[in-house]
């Protein structure tokens, strides 16, 4: 069974204080790894997809990296508007359709204080 574990559960940073969030996974065969951002009262918003170990993607102050066992979401010089819950997810297992369901971790609640 696919498993996704995120750490820490909560992280409080000062504005400008860089840090990283971790997502470790156990899957039968990696088909990709997704990062989403979720604001209170809203649905998850897509950030990145990573497909292979060594891959990196960036968006503004966020950079996602992938190894064979885990993914990191690096936040450089965060601002208060980066405060949200960050979710990672892996696709699968497949039940016969053209698209895979997502198995999510519990998320990391990031708070950035001004």
């Amino acid at each position, binding site marked *: 069974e696919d498993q996704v574990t995120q750490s820490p559960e909560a992280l409080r940073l000062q504005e400008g204080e860089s840090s990283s969030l971790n997502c470790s996974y156990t899957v039968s065969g990696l088909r990709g790894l997704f990062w989403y951002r979720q604001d209170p009262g809203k649905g998850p918003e897509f950030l990145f997809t990573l497909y292979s170990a060594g891959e990196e993607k960036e968006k503004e102050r966020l950079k996602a990296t992938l190894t064979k066992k885990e993914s990191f979401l690096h936040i450089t010089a965060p601002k208060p508007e980066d405060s949200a819950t960050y979710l990672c997810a892996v696709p699968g297992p497949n039940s016969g359709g053209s*698209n895979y369901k*997502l198995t999510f971790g519990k*998320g990391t609640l990031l708070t950035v204080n001004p």
Partner: protein
Amino acid sequence: EAGVAQSPRYKIIEKRQSVAFWCNPISGHATLYWYQQILGQGPKLLIQFQNNGVVDDSQLPKDRFSAERLKGVDSTLKIQPAKLEDSAVYLCASSSPGQITDTQYFGPGTRLTVL
């Protein structure tokens, strides 16, 4: 491009009552998902449709939950009768079946409170 639409946004009911949620996916997206997100947890798949057929409903509590997707577009999820533990946010997502790992786009969710 319009996103995934859901209604209502909030619903409060008594236990043993019934409730229904509606979802309209992004135009052209053949795959539709319903997820349940309990406070402090990540979303968990309840049911996955491709067009109007069910692909995966292995985690749907079929004694009380039902879902349909008529005409392969919008979908409804029903709970009857509701239990206290059904209090959660119900998220609808859609994706285009171009690749198996196509991005899923989520709606705003319906927050259900069962008293």
